């Protein structure tokens, strides 16, 4: 375009300078939010006098509650909750990274739309969201005694075993007896998992493998009959490296893993790593899934789903009531209607198909240490990106 020349650039430059304060001004992160105030007292099972009826009344005045959960069954929970208390639940299924993004953005911009999150990324929770006050941990005081202390902070409302499983049509007995077997060439390209890059809990699992060298060494010795020869510092990472090099196949969800592993009519079906709940569809979808019973040193890990209240949420009392409901009876859509999941509430009876109670399962699973997971997560992810993507 003719006639632009120097003056135009000066003009444009001046305009940009004008906009700078607007760019810079907004860029300051919101000042550290004060932790805990007013109506949402945090407490890990304190002995405050707890008036359930007052809570119900306050919640009913608020009228509705907005929830983001990693499970789509929040909709069923919501329907039951509404039937009991007349409070509408706007539940949406949403993955961890998106939930985290929304909560952080909403709290930072002081425009909080969500009340309760059902969240699986424990590392981010304990590492950032709770200490920096984005979410608040609230345990219903009357139910606290029914939960074991480790389940209270952060509050867990659901435990799911995420385990290795196989297709019982293809194999008469569990084909994997020991963790180290997963690295063997026979299983190259035949192990399906949910994409670690998109599943923080799976990364946490791998991170915790790396921090349990003694378990790994014992497992090695029990399987191969001789010491591994790898020193304690490196054995976890060496295991992970070999595992990732074994061409794991990633799927978008545990459901996809279950469907692919359990599909009928396969001669040599792959094995998979999925949440036990996927086996509830064995009849409906004609799947042949079975758990890798007896696998040493563990079958998988215990996947917790945490329930937390978002800071400055619009319906704090309804949020508390929803959490109270889920812990006391509302967990039914997950735990008693179908198999595969457990409530931390020690009074809750497990589903008959569950192959045991939660106490039984805890012996078979690795428990995730969130602090370790947070520290090592990036390294595990990078290891995965480096070795797991060799195609």
């Amino acid at each position: 375009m003719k006639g632009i020349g120097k003056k135009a650039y000066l003009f444009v430059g001046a305009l940009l300078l004008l906009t700078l304060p607007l760019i810079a001004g907004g860029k300051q992160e919101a000042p550290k939010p004060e932790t805990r105030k007013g109506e949402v007292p945090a407490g890990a099972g304190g002995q405050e006098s707890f008036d359930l009826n007052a809570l119900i009344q306050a919640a009913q005045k608020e009228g509705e509650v907005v929830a983001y959960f990693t499970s789509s069954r929040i909709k069923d929970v919501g329907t039951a909750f509404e039937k009991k208390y007349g409070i509408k639940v706007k539940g949406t299924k949403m993955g961890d990274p998106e939930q985290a993004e929304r909560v952080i953005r909403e709290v930072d911009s002081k425009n909080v739309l969500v009340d309760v999150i059902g969240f699986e990324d424990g590392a981010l929770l304990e590492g950032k969201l709770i200490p920096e006050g984005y979410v608040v941990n609230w345990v219903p005081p009357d139910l606290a005694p029914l939960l074991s202390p480790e389940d209270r902070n952060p509050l867990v409302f659901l435990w799911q075993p995420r385990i290795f499983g196989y297709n019982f049509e293809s194999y008469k007995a569990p084909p994997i007896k020991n963790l180290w077997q997963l690295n063997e060439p026979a299983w190259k390209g035949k192990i399906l998992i949910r994409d670690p890059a998109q599943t923080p809990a799976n990364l946490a699992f791998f991170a915790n493998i790396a921090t349990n060298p003694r378990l790994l060494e014992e497992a090695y010795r029990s399987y191969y009959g001789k010491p591994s020869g790898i020193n304690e510092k490196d054995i976890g990472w060496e295991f992970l490296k070999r595992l990732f090099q074994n061409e794991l196949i990633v799927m978008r969800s545990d459901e996809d893993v279950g469907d692919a592993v359990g599909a009928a009519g396969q001669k040599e079906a792959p094995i998979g790593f999925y949440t036990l709940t996927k086996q509830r569809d064995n009849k409906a979808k004609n799947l042949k899934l079975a758990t890798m019973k007896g696998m040493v040193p563990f079958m998988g890990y215990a996947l917790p789903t945490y329930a937390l209240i978002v800071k400055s949420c619009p319906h704090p009392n309804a949020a508390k009531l929803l959490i109270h409901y889920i812990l006391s009876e509302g967990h039914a859509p997950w735990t008693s209607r179908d198999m595969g999941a457990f409530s931390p509430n020690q009074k809750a009876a497990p589903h008959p198909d569950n192959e045991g109670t939660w106490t039984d399962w805890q012996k078979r699973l690795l428990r995730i240490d969130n602090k370790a997971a947070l520290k090592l997560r990036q390294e595990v992810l990078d290891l995965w990106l480096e070795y797991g993507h060799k195609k």
Partner: protein
Amino acid sequence: MEGQGMRIRRLVNEFRLLPYDPTKAIGFLLCAALAYLILAPVLALLLDTVRVNLRDSATIGIPTGTFTTYFLRRTFLSRVSEVLFWKPFWRTLFVAGSVCGIAIPMGALFAWLVVRTDLPGSKLVSRLMVVPYMIPSWTFAVAWISVFKNRRIGGLAGMLETMGFVPPDWIAYGALPIIVCESLHVYPFAFLLFGNALRSMDSQLEESARVLGASSFAISRRIVLPLLKPALLSSFLLTFSRVLGSFGTPYILGSGVKYYLLPTALYNSYKVGSPGVAAVIACVTVLIGVSLVALDMFFVREYRRFITLGGKGAMVRRRPLGALTLPALFLTLISLCLTILIPLGTLVLTTFMHRPGLFTVENFTLDYWMGTSIPAMVGQKGFFFNPDILRSLKNSVWIAGSASLLCGFLGMLVGYIVVRLPKSRVAAYLRQVSFLPYLVPSIGFAAASLSFFAVPRGPIPSLYGSMFLLVLVMSLKYLPFASRSGITAMTQMGNEPEEAARVCGAGWLRRMGRIVLPLQKHALLTGILLPLISGMKEQSLVIMLATPGTELMTTQVLRFIDYGYTQLSNATVVGIVGIIFILTLSMERLTGANLASGFASRG
């Protein structure tokens, strides 16, 4: 001699004249607004590549807000840079280059057939050829996946699988299908560009060469090909940049086998919670896109002299095909089938079958359109009753509608200012800045806007998760179209009517409302309807901005694909295509314009 007093009086006068001639003031306001809405986010994106975001600080241990080269190093130099960036980068170049290699000869061939030979039905063929470009680019990908899917991705079996053939991975996913689908979508672009060039090429040039004794080969080499160079270059650059910014197709066809291109790599980084790396990838995408389009604009100016050659009533003699007529027709028909009939037909067909590929009577059903409950898909209903689909339809219409209205008026305003203040810096600035969004690949523009508007800025609250953000970003994205048409329209309208009104004492608002807009309603309509249609099929722009509750039809398609709900995703695509066809046809009736070519024109 101008003293201080004179100057002040001048200013005061200008101020008093404002209601009658606020053109300059509005011009300044527009400049400031566009600077804020378009330039600032892109600058903020650049900043994001070196500042630590909260999500990143959790994983890398550097406090939020510090300046660092960490992300640049991680994306370009680290041991994971191969996976995060370089592989997607080279693959994108490879795919884009291959698409050009297929689409351009294809487009050129058909352009020649339609313009330069006596191919029967060439007018109809010409109209139909543009259809693949009108439907969303990922429509082909959805159709492909329905047919060629295998067990690498969960969910309902593909058509071929059900019929007993299991397609190998390299046919079902990855480079091959991506290249094929993109080529089928994008070749009409080359078709139109070459068509225009051929049409304006005077046959007399070739004929005089023949009279002088030149061989056919020499004529092609020394006259035709050089004259086609601009079309060739343009179609290459613009096709390349289109593939660069395309998100849907690589997402649907590549994610299952970890075949990532730049747009999907960007999306992955963002979704995984690495916004710093995502910003770096976005900047690279933007840089490449901007250079490609800038190159094109530069060459267009360079080559302008080529076009004027044919300016005086070019005569285009049509070559008789003779024996080649039948094969040519056949080829054309096959191409039309491949690009229109088969993809759309497949999509429609699958929506009526429980298991696509099983051609038995019991397998056909209306469930996925009318059903109130679908056994295989827990909690889902058929298209016309499905709350997710209906809500996304409402959102699409609402968002695209508001965006197109905003865009149309803004474009008209820009046109007004630019034409009424000729040769001023304001006009030049407006022209450039309103055109900028065209240079920025959609997904990069979305990333920039998301990070910029997600925090409150002065009086403007955070727009994160709001519909308004979608409306805003969409209207900015299509502003180039609208401002182009606004400028063109205003250029053709003289000053006189407005001046006459001013003399009669009409204020600016009155003049706009009673004179300018009524005279320009044609252009305004175009400036509104064209973005409306584009907005209904837009996906790359909105995929990063849509959230549950603000899903649009185009993002809802991806959700269904993620869950493996083939029939519902296909039904939604059919719905989108149907709406686009209806809108396009009505628009052509209303404005008498040939919309299809309007789409593929350079703006």
